[in-house]
């Protein structure tokens, strides 16, 4: 799929761009984290022990601090000291669950949603874009007006509306790493939030379709497509053999960049309480809001992981764009 020249320019880009390389490394580690969450997470992310709750991250806390408790119907101020421990390097939440483990598992949700939404969008968007751009004419007009309609709504609003329509659909699949017996004491099943995946796809395919259409139009006017037509190749054959392969690079670059948008939308939805699973970054950020004054790490840590992931994707996207396709435009939220 990638020609030698593309590969060399990519290699050169990677070599010459240390910042981007760091970004790619960050992203890769996030991916690894998501895939090997059961192995990497020190604890079961749902395992709770309220006696050790609100433990700060390692190297934080330790000094005496005042908290309020109600004891025998009286509100009393008590002095407590709570120091971070190695067992919970990023602290614990209000139910004593390990923040690090939850965040590692949260990466899973974000990445599963991002990748599956992008996969759905790529299939739908590329198909529509190819058909629209290649056949042009009335097919194109109608499809593109439909695209305009979807684009008239802010992405987040339409995603939310889709959630309202779809309700909360989730699919639970056994975690292969746990099933294989590699690790125990971890959740045996992973929850795939189908609703938000579909809801996000309902917007993202449009972004893909627009780019795919543009690429299809450009490719269609290339002389080699004309040549294929004069050779008697069928339209579908031309799309499959010429138009699609020559359009796919910019589409994939856009897709890479848009994965960042998807992760931000996904975390926004979870933040607003529409995640479908409680193991997600946005959900934990929202849960931590109530403890901002006392347990700052609850909202801070998952947010940092989002930023790191999205920075990684954006750097990778910039890198790909510079290496493969200097002309591509960034789509907005």
């Amino acid at each position, binding site marked *: 799929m990638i*020609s*030698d*020249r593309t590969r060399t320019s990519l290699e050169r880009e990677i070599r010459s761009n240390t910042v981007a390389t760091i970004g790619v490394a960050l992203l890769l580690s996030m991916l690894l984290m998501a895939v090997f969450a059961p192995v990497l997470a020190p604890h079961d992310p749902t395992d709770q022990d309220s006696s050790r709750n609100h433990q700060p991250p390692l190297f934080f806390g330790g000094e005496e601090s005042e908290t309020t408790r109600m004891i025998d119907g009286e509100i009393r101020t008590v002095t407590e000291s709570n120091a971070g421990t190695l067992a919970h390097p990023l602290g614990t939440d209000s139910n004593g669950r390990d923040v690090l483990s939850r965040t590692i598992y949260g990466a899973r949700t974000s990445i599963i949603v991002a990748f599956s939404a992008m996969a759905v969008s790529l299939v739908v968007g590329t198909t529509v874009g190819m058909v629209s751009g290649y056949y*042009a004419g*009335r097919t*194109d*007009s*109608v499809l*593109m*007006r439909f695209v305009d309609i979807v684009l008239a709504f802010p992405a987040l609003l339409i995603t939310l509306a889709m959630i309202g329509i779809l309700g909360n659909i989730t699919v639970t699949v056994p975690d292969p790493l746990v099933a294989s017996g590699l690790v125990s004491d971890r959740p045996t099943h992973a929850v795939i939030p189908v609703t938000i995946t579909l809801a996000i796809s309902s917007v993202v395919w449009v972004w893909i379709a627009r780019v795919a259409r543009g690429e299809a139009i450009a490719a269609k006017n*290339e*002389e*080699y497509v*004309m*040549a*294929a*037509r*004069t*050779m*008697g*190749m069928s339209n579908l*054959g031309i799309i499959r*053999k*010429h138009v699609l*392969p*020559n359009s796919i690079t910019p589409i994939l670059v856009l897709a890479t960049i848009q994965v960042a948008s998807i992760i931000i939308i996904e975390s926004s939805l979870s933040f607003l309480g529409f995640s479908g699973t409680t193991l997600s970054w946005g959900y934990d950020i929202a849960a931590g809001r109530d403890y901002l004054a006392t347990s700052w790490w609850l909202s801070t840590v998952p947010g940092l992981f989002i930023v790191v992931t999205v920075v990684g994707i954006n750097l990778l996207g910039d890198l790909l764009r510079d290496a493969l396709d200097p002309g591509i435009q960034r789509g907005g939220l």
Partner: protein
Amino acid sequence: MSNEPAPVPQDSPGRTAPDRGPSAPLLRVDGLQKHYVDDQGLADWLLSNDPGRVRAVDDVSFDLYRGETLGIVGESGCGKSTLARTILGLHEPTAGRVEFTGTDVHEQVATDRKRFARRAQIVFQDPSSCLDPRMTLREIVREPLDIHQVGAKSHRNETVADLVERVGLSTDHLERYASEFSGGQRQRIGIARALALDPELIVLDEPTSALDVSVQAQILTLLADLQAEFDLTYLFISHDLSVVRYLCDRVVVMYLGRVAELGPVDRVFEDPSHPYTRILLESTPGRGARAGDRKAATTDIPSPRNPPSGCRFHTRCPVVVPPETYGAAFERDAWPGILEYSRQVRAGRFDADALATLADRHGVDPEDEVALERAIRDRCSIPQPLTDEIAEDLLGASLAALVSGDTETALAMLEADFASPCAATAPPFVEVGSEHRAACLRACEQDGER
């Protein structure tokens, strides 16, 4: 778009030269039209943003015989590429028909493109666009074989190797991607691909215009060799007269979508009958030609979207036919001056400021209308007075209007009184010599005289 009927004599079999072998043309183009998509319905108007952009072709007819090379020359916007693609069935014609060995190409394409594809192929202009950059040399040349399932699969690679060697490329490079070849090499690949199906006709759409001269020469010689070897018929599209002259037997000169002149290359280029062909020849660099009366023709080409009425070349033509109302001497004495005068009026060269400057230059009082009129006549070299009295009166009225500042009236009068038949009538296509035809009123006159 004018649609007055113009007599279009057919290039009938009876007129073919004996050396052309079988009498039926390989390809016959008959009254072919391809227009802009302007007629959109309301739904389209609401739904879409821009109409398609196609260079128009209007009422083009010619025949192409087996084994010959027919050149199509013209400047940008003349519709030569549209013509080529319409002939190959890539565009649907608005009117007229294209016959390939007697059958309608567009019917054939609609039912079975493949069959037609095996007989007619195309080589494109742009070496950077004509090959799929994601395919290797082998894949590109093999593609037509695969589509048509030519021979056994195992044999196809051999066929590919033969073709590749035949066009002068090394079989060592079979696995290289298109982007790794130079422009000339890519054109060779394009030719190999076109040859793969062993077609009878190859349309060459400016195959060398993007190449450097040294490489162009390579391709031209290759094309000539291949034609001899494979008994090919070429439809060669170009804007370069030298190349056309080198490669072609006959040539069609096109201007703004219409055929201006058609005939054997030598005759057309040595004795052009259409003023446009003449201008084109004179403009060809490196022939030591110097500016003569072609100045008006060398500034601008009208938009093919909105072509001029009558003879489409009349706006640039140095030998526009004068109105018939005036005396015989009118053309020689007065007509060039009046043409120049009307051009300058149309170009706004006689607005108030310009008149003041003119007066100043001629040392006359800007208020003195008579002197000013004289100055204008001087500048346009209009004799004083014209020999034809009626013409003199009419011109005088226009000049008076101009000098009094009413440019529009002046122009309107000119257009009414000194309208050239060229602007009104599309010239018919007439025989000017053996197999040599041109669409020009002047040619008609000669025709009539003969």
